[in-house]
């Protein structure tokens, strides 16, 4: 059995998005409860959350943006950049705790204290652009972690796999010119789903051309279509790229019971995706897989989805 780290902090619940917002504290409570009831918490190594050292955030986000986020949030503004991004006074600090926790998980993997990790954080990150909050995301946790691994641990090639039902525009744009970070995303086709990017022809630019890969999926698709596209698009790409660490943007909103989009992936479908990722992790990255929560809004499905996800991290060979 693997030593799997689990990042969770009750303070992540303090990021208050107001009534009726789908990206709500109950999501994390459901995940925590799911792991507890499945008897998995005892098998996991707890990862303490930490305030992030802002020098790492600054490798990804523009200083003006960070300052604006801090000032507007602490000044009591309820939204940042768009009505979607609801804030409370704690949001800025919680976003720092989320990014800092993910970096701590990365550090523990690199030091060998754990083999892999699941980070149940909020706010999520993959829509956050260099200088703009988008789609409930403020700091791009996964992007910050990728740069941290490269800078602090001389990791040359980081592979990011994003299976949230929405395209991770922020992560893609941040690394689209960078051949050292491969960004792969599978998501509902952008003509039907937020944020309207992630088409097949988006393949990176300049030096980074060929190091971005998108698999848009038509609405109503299920496990077999995800499996077909992952085998066709992701497996050969990572075989050629040979990532030294894999970071997962784990969103569970492609589930058939999630109303956010129109996908019909089953709980078993998510397990297949994660087992496939772990197989690549073992093959190329010495088992170093860092999974970070993005979306997933079906509160009654999140417990089983999180438990299934963590079991695969624990059982990976």
């Amino acid at each position, binding site marked *: 059995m693997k030593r799997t780290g689990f990042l969770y902090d009750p303070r992540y619940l303090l990021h208050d998005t107001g009534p009726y917002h789908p990206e709500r504290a109950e999501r994390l409570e459901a995940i925590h409860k799911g792991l507890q009831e499945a008897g998995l918490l005892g098998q996991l190594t707890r990862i303490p959350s930490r305030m992030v050292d802002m020098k790492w955030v600054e490798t990804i986000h523009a200083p003006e943006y960070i300052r604006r986020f801090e000032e507007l949030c602490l000044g009591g503004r309820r939204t940042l950049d768009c009505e*979607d991004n609801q804030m409370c006074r704690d949001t800025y600090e919680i976003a720092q705790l989320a990014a800092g926790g993910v970096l701590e998980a990365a550090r523990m993997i690199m030091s060998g204290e754990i083999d892999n990790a699941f980070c149940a954080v909020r706010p999520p990150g993959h829509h956050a652009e260099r200088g703009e909050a988008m789609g409930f995301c403020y700091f791009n946790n996964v992007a910050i972690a990728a740069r941290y691994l490269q800078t602090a641990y001389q990791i040359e090639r980081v592979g990011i796999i994003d299976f949230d039902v929405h395209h991770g525009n922020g992560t893609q744009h941040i690394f689209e010119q960078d051949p050292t970070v491969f960004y792969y995303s599978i998501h509902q086709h952008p003509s039907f789903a937020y944020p309207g*990017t992630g088409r097949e022809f988006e393949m990176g630019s300049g030096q980074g051309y060929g190091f971005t890969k998108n698999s848009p999926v038509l609405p*109503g698709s299920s496990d077999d279509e995800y499996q077909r596209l992952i085998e066709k698009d992701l497996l050969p790409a990572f075989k050629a790229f040979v990532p030294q660490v894999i970071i997962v943007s784990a969103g569970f909103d492609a589930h058939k019971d999630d*109303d956010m989009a129109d996908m019909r992936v089953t709980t078993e479908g998510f397990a297949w995706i994660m087992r496939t990722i772990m197989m690549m992790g073992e093959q190329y990255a010495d088992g170093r897989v860092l999974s970070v929560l993005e979306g997933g809004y079906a509160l009654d499905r999140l417990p089983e989805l999180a438990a299934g996800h963590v079991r695969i991290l624990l059982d990976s060979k």
Partner: protein
Amino acid sequence: MFVSQSMTRKVITVSKETPLLEAQALMANSNIRHLPVVAADNRLEGIITDRDIRSALPYDMARGRAPEEERRKYAHLTVAEFMTTAPATVTVFDTLQDALLLIQEKRVGAFPVIDADGKLKGIISVRDLLRAFINVLGIGEPGTLLCILVENKVGQLKRIVDAITEERISFGSVLVARYWEKDKRAVFPYLLTNNVIRIKKKLQDMGFTLLDPMQWYLDQLPKSE
């Protein structure tokens, strides 16, 4: 939505006397395919395209790969002999819709835009129209497409728009299209948000049917009503 708002204003032009090879180089260097031909007072006299030039020259010349002495043989050719005189034009007062329909009808890649005196004001190409259309659809901005099936009767669209507005969601665009059941319409609001769970439920509670986007194919629609 007038042509004048979407056209290219800084137009690269030639005169009738411009050598053909010069026009060819101008297109290659500026990465364009259409050059309006104007008189000294900027009155439009014609248009010359990369296709006109290609068909006027032998293959190697057309590809710009011919040796210098070969090129000299064609140096006397001028734009006047190969341009289209009296080309299809639009005026600054025409709309984008006019230009879209005309471009389909005339099968050309660009129109010179002229004023009432026939003087050149700009050029509008397929590329400019596409950009304008992307703008109209709102798809340059992040958002989510909803597909709603409604009864074909007055007031339905208002109910949808009101419901969405109450949720304080901004619109990128709203398209209304025919549906294969004669008394129904398909409405496609493009909403500038990621947060659609509540509005979807609200619309369903109001009695609207949310369409599976995959069930709506343009080619299944009746050709006419």
